[in-house]
Each structure stands twice: as C-alpha cells, then as structure tokens.
C-alpha cells in the first residue's frame, strides 16, 4: 500500500497533493420492537486524492486502488479547471512533515467479537426496554461498531497510518397512551473503544424506558420567556451547535460581516465562561492524533474568561487568517475532503453547585438532554428530551415539548451562573455539516443558568 500511494503521489504535477485511503470494518445490529431489523457486517475500502493547483482544489474519489494513479491525474486536471476560474492563490499554513503509526489496542476488538455476541447483548437491552411497562409500544435499539485504518500521505513527505475505533449504542423506547399521547425516552452512548464499552449498560435501557413512560404524564410546556437551567448534556449541545459552528474558520474566513462580530479579544460572556475545543480527551469519540490533513491535534480555547480567543482551523483557513492550524480538518470518510469540524467541545466548569444555580428562581425551566439541535448562523434551536419546572428554587413537575431558541450572542451574555459539575458526553449519532454526517464528536459542560430564554410551546 505504501509504495502504491507514494508512486501515485509522484504522478502529480500539482503544487500540493495528498492521498487518504481508508479501510473500514463495520457492524450494525438494529432492533425495532421485537424485530431484528438489521444485522450485518461490512467492509469498505476507498480513497480520495486532493490536488491544489494555483488557487483551486481538484478532488477525486475512488474505490478501486488500482485506479489510484489515474485518479491523481483526474484530480490535477480538475484543479487546473478550478484554478483558471480563481486568480487568487491558495496558501497552506506550514505543518512539519511527519512519519507516524498510531495503533490502538482494545480489550475487545470488535473485529474479533462474533456477530452473535453483539446481537445477544443488544437483544438483552432491547428486552429491558420492551418489558419495562405495557405502555411501551415499540423500541429502536441500535448497536454499531467501526474500526478504521486511515492512511494519509502528502507531497511534502508526510506518511501517517492511524487506527480509529468507534462503538455506539442507541436505546429508544416509545410509550403510548390512547390515540395521540406518544412519547419517546432515549439514552445513547458512543466512545472510541472496543466492544467492552457496550457491556453492562442495562441501566441505560431502564432509564430510557422509564422516561418514555414518565413523559406520558408530563405537562406540555407553555411557550414564553423563562430563566432556564440546562443540564450538562444540553449545555454541550448548545455550545456545540450555537457557538462552535460559528468558530469554524472555513466559514468565517470568507465572511467579513461575521468576522466583524466575532473579534478575538471581544467579551462574549461572564468572566467564568470558558469554552474549550480539545483534540484529545482519553477514550472520547472526538479524538484523533492527526486530523485528515496530517496536522497534530491541539487543545484550544474558543472563549477564555469570557473573551473570544480564536477559531478552529484547517491549513488553508489558518494561512488565510494568519493563524496556526489546530488539527480540526476532518472528513467523515474517504468519500469527502476534510472541512473544519469540531472534536471534543465543552464549556469548562465554574464554581456554582446545582442548588446555588436553582436558588432564587421563582419560576423557571430545568431542561435536560436533547432530541436534536440546529442553527442558522446566530439563530439556534434545540429540543430538550425532557424537562422540569423550577418553582421557588426547587425542581417541580415534569414538562415535555420544551424547545429552546434564540440568538447566540444574546444568550451567551445571558448566562449568569456556571456549575462545578462538568461532564463530557459522546452520543450515538454525530455532527453534520456540508453534507458530511455523522462525524463522531463529543460535547459537554456543567449545569448552566440562562436568563430570558425563549421557549417554544403551545399556548394553554
């Protein structure tokens, strides 16, 4: 493989060329209700060539390694077409060429665990979901594992082989009462580990089922403006979706107006607000030693002491904005070129206890976990998976259908308390951007209190 890649690189007459070849082994087990909807193992092998000529990128994707040299020529030809349209040269920020092999050793490598064991463990969790209550009408239980060997080489002399494991578990219970009261409870878990991480997760199944049943009795929230306390998970979704994406420099470097707003040195929140983007947290899904351009990982502050510090970069955006590459150029697979993406992103912990955060709230909302989140630049929306009333500083009755929305800059300024209970969390899905989803990332934070947040809901 090494010789073949080096030979293909030599064929290129472009200013810069890189080749990434990925070999991936995957399994999936998927139950819906009592039915094993899918069980199967698959393997995938493919690669991508990127050529930079003048101001243009040409990109060619292939499955057959026999085609590698021809695809290098195609990428170069396309890059020339793009370059003719773009007079401006593209520079890449320098990165030291590196030769490295990053191997992982897993207690239970999923490639050697029989498929049947994976099916049995998931069936156990699925049975727990189904048997919790006769109100549970159906389930979605999904186990996935993936083991990727990524080979990256470029025309500057870098050659890296890196192994990246990933296992996930998604457990969803659907409870129903009468014709229209249908509620879902879910728990999910994803780590850069082997099969061992998926063992002993019965409690998650029980929690998911209990929540679905409890939500049948929960009150729908009344829309309005509230003091909202978000749990560590929702704090993480918020900072990833609403703020993290704005700090991805591939978007920012072309957008002068947004750059005018997001100026390093400008204050965006209270002194205690720190937002960190970290290329390595032991065992977490957002990890990789090198990104998909061969840049070594780093840990950076997006916000430190309430003040904006900097952004996430690829080599191209770093050169354009006079910054250092941060190791954030990532691709979901060989079918896509790397773009600027998050890894492990979180609000760092502050000093308040949970009780201190609740203190003094006459009526507010405690919003937990997330069904999902989406943003359009400064506007965000995310749906809490479940929530509670806060009445006179105490947690009250359960609420459902809580959707939080607002403007990120207003909302960051409205954070007035930050908890001392940081948790970082990897789910079963991942992040989506530019047609590339799901990319393994993690997110988190402590409990965070936000004043004057809009909550959507039906009037009562």
């Amino acid at each position: 493989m090494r010789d073949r890649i080096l030979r293909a690189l030599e064929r290129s007459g472009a200013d810069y060329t890189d080749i990434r070849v990925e070999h991936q082994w995957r399994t999936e087990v998927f139950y819906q209700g009592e039915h094993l909807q899918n069980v199967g193992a698959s393997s995938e092998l493919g690669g991508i060539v990127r050529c930079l000529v003048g101001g243009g990128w040409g990109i060619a994707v292939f499955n057959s390694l026999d085609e590698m040299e021809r695809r290098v020529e195609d990428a170069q030809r396309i890059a020339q077409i793009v370059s003719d349209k773009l007079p401006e040269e593209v520079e890449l920020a320098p990165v030291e060429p590196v030769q490295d092999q990053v191997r992982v050793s897993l207690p239970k490598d999923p490639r050697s665990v029989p498929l049947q064991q994976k099916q049995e463990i998931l069936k156990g969790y699925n049975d727990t979901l189904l048997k919790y209550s006769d109100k549970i009408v159906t389930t979605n239980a999904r186990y996935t594992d993936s083991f990727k060997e990524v080979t990256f080489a470029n025309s500057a002399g870098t050659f890296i082989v890196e192994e990246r494991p990933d296992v996930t578990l998604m457990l969803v219970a659907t409870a129903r009462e009468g014709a229209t009261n249908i509620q879902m409870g879910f728990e999910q878990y994803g780590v850069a580990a082997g099969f061992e991480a998926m063992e002993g997760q019965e409690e998650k199944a029980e929690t998911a089922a209990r929540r679905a049943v409890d939500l049948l009795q929960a009150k729908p929230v009344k829309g309005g403006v509230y003091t909202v306390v978000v749990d560590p998970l929702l704090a993480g979704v918020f900072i990833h979706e609403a703020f993290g994406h704005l700090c991805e420099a591939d978007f920012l470097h072309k957008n002068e107006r947004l750059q005018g707003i997001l100026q390093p040195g400008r204050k965006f929140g209270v002194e205690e607000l720190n937002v960190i983007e970290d290329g390595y947290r032991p065992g977490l899904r957002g990890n990789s030693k090198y990104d998909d351009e061969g840049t070594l990982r780093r840990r950076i502050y997006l916000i430190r002491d309430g003040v904006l510090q900097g952004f996430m970069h690829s080599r191209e955006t770093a050169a354009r904005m006079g910054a250092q590459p941060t190791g954030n150029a990532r691709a979901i697979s060989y079918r896509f070129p790397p773009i600027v993406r998050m890894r492990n992103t979180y609000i760092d912990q502050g000093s308040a206890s949970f009780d201190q955060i609740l203190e003094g709230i006459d009526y507010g909302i405690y919003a937990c976990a997330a069904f999902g989140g989406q943003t359009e630049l400064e506007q965000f929306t995310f749906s809490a998976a479940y929530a509670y009333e806060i009445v006179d500083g105490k947690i009250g009755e359960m609420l459902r259908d809580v959707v939080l929305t607002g403007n990120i800059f207003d909302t960051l300024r409205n954070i007035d308390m930050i908890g001392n209970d940081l948790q970082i969390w990897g789910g079963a899905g991942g992040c989506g951007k530019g047609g590339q989803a799901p990319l393994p990332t993690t997110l988190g934070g402590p409990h965070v209190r936000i004043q004057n947040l809009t909550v959507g809901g039906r009037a009562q």
Partner: protein
Amino acid sequence: MKTEIRAANLLEEVSGQVDGAELYQLRSLELPVRFAFGKLESVQSVETAGRALRLIKDGRLGFSTTTDLADDTTLVRNALESAQFGDPAPFEFPVKQPTEPVACFDREVEQLDENALIALGEEIVEEIKSYDAQLQTDVVIYRSIQEVQLLNTSGLDIQDRRTGLAISVEVTRAREGDIVIIYDSASSHRRQDVDGLALARGIVERFQWAEKTVKVGSKPMPVVFHRLGAAVPLLPLMSGLNGRQVFLGASPLAEKLEQQVLDERFTLVDDGRLDFASRSAPYDDEGVPTTRKSLIEGGVVRQFLYDLKTAGLAGAQPTGNGFKSGLRGGGFQRPPDVAPSTWLVPPGERSLEEILSGLDEALLVEQVIGLGQGNVMAGEFSNNVSVGFLVHNGEIAGRVKNTMIAGNVYELLKDQLLALSDRPAWVFGLLHVPAIAVDGVSVASRG
C-alpha cells in the same frame, strides 16, 4: 490487479447454499461543484462502486455489503454469519413483474461536464448579486450517473441507468445583530426540470419581503406554510403513514385505515412513477414495481407504505416503497427500508395572494430551524421560524424574528385547515405541495 467478480456469477455461487438471495450493485459517477461566498470553491469527481448481498437461509435473513468487487468470500461469509440468528424472513424474493417504463435517464444531464456545471453556478451567483451585491451565495450543484443492477434467485434481473441533477442555493444576508439565511433546492433526473435562475429569483423575492422587520405578538394565529415551510405539516405524516410504524403500533394512524382523520379537502398521493422526478424509478430497490396511490383521500386514510419485509409481517401487499437510500441517503450500504416516493398534495382553488388577502393577522412561514426535532411521531412540531413574514390586513408587512411556532399536525389538518393554494411548489425534490393555510397555531415571540 484483482479481477472483478460478475454480479450474476456471485449470485449463482451463493444460490446453492441458501433458500434465496438478492444482489444489489451500484456504480456511480458523481460530479459535485461547490461555490462558497459567490466564488467557485471546489470540483470533485467521485467514482464509486459497491454491492450488497441479502439472503435467506433456513428462513432467516442475512445481510452484508462491500466495496471490493473482486472479493466474494468475505461478503458471502458475513452475510451467512448474520443469517444464523437473523430475523425470520416473512417474504420471498420476488419474480420480475412487468411494468410500464418510468423515465429516469436524460442525455442532457449525462453530457454536462465540469465547465457546464460551473457555468450553471455562475449564472445563479450573478442573478443574486444583481439584486444585492452584499448577499453571500453558496451553491452546490450535483450531477450523477448511476448504474443499478438488482438480481435475485427468483430470476429477477433489473439493470437501470439513471441520471440526476440537483442544485441547492443558500444565500446569507449578514448585518450586525441580524442574519438571514434563505435557501432552496431543486432536483430531477432531467436537466430541464432544474432551473437555477428560478431558484435564485424565488430567493430574491423572499429577501425583498425581508427588507423590513416587524414585531408579532404571542398568541394562536393563522399560519400559511409555503414552499420549504410546507415540510412542517407533512413531515409527521411520513412517520405516521410508514407501514412499519403502523405495524409496530407507534403511528397515531395505526387503527385509522378507512377512517376520516383529516379535513375532507386534504388528499395526499405517493407517486413512484412520475417521469423524471428524482425519487422515481420503475422498480424499488427490492424489485417490486413502484406505484402511484392515494395515502389520504379526502381526509380518509387509504393506504400505508410497505416494503417486502414489513408487508410480510403486517399481512399487507408491498407498495414498491422498499428503498436502500432513505431520505438521508446511504446508497448500497443500507438494507432496504420503507421510504416515500414523491409526495403530491393536489392544490386548491385560490392563489396564495387571495388566501393572504383574507387574513387580518397571520404568519407566512417559508423556512424553519429544527425540522424533525421533537415528538414527530405524535404529530407535534415546535420550530423557530427562520424565514417568516407577518401578514397584516392581507398584505406582507415584513419579516418576523425570534419567533417560534408550535402545534399538532393531526389536529391542525383536521379541524383548522383554512385553504390550500392553487400552485404546488417542489420541496427537497420530495414534496410537490401547495401552500397550506391553517388556523390556531401557537406563536411565541420575543418581538
């Protein structure tokens, strides 16, 4: 160099060891062209191939996929291993049933090269710029040529060549403290159906309406879901009419077949045979002929969507809705699953302008954030209105900000339907629907 194993040979090799087997093979040539902030960003050439083997052994289903067309042993071994404890198969692989052709190939699309696609993008960028040079335009143009081959041990052998052209346009107006993003897209098997300039002009129209910002109160009011906004009321129906969710008992429509559940003016058709529509094909990905059928007719539930497996479990007929790439793609890597074809809602009598002119105070919702979040199965929606306009005394008064809408689709389309407009619009290459006006939607706004 390893030699590729022919699909037919692989199927024959496996046929002696199993009750039945199906081989799906996809070769595709894709050419995505991206413009960012009004400038060409990249051109890619994506040549991929892969196959999926699904089999039934001792009555149980197994599945595996690979991108290595020279390797049969791993593919067959993986599929056989999973069949040892797979779900019982409630169906047999179908024989080929004759059907009329459905047009999926267009020579004009096939002949579009990199330069032609770049020119298409430039035309869109220029059109937007001529309205306001400060607007930032992102465009993705996607041309594909696919060769699909589907074989099974019941003698089915389908080979199909399809073209595809898709354009999506996203335009941003960023002013300090106020950012608006408006997007739209079009896709088809045929070149002439994908009109980039029309997309650009529709986006400019929305920016014109958005020049002025107005405040809206927090209360229930009429909402008109238009263009992409129409996905809000239709999305929950995709879960509700999915035969698997019905069989599992999760759909609120589960016991409602032949019952009146929505307003009698509301009809919904699933059409897998509309020539050149991007989700059309003569057969689905299991070899069942696609169909055109009313799912809801005059408000009455007539039909759910089924693939082979779900139909077998539910004792229903397959409807030709077994697709390997659901709404989110996935290509050959996924087993077939229940998915809609093109959804058509027959239009009403009045134009959008006439409908708006009859409303004292209402929201025209063109685009939301958070589509598909929340309790979709129950019909609930709760969305931030990212592109929406206040209608005051029948006229568009301006854009609303920081506004949420919430409601239940099943309740709104049953008791609160005001009107359907006379001109359907394409949404995501999936829906072809008129503007849908309903009363009594909860609106919460910070003004």
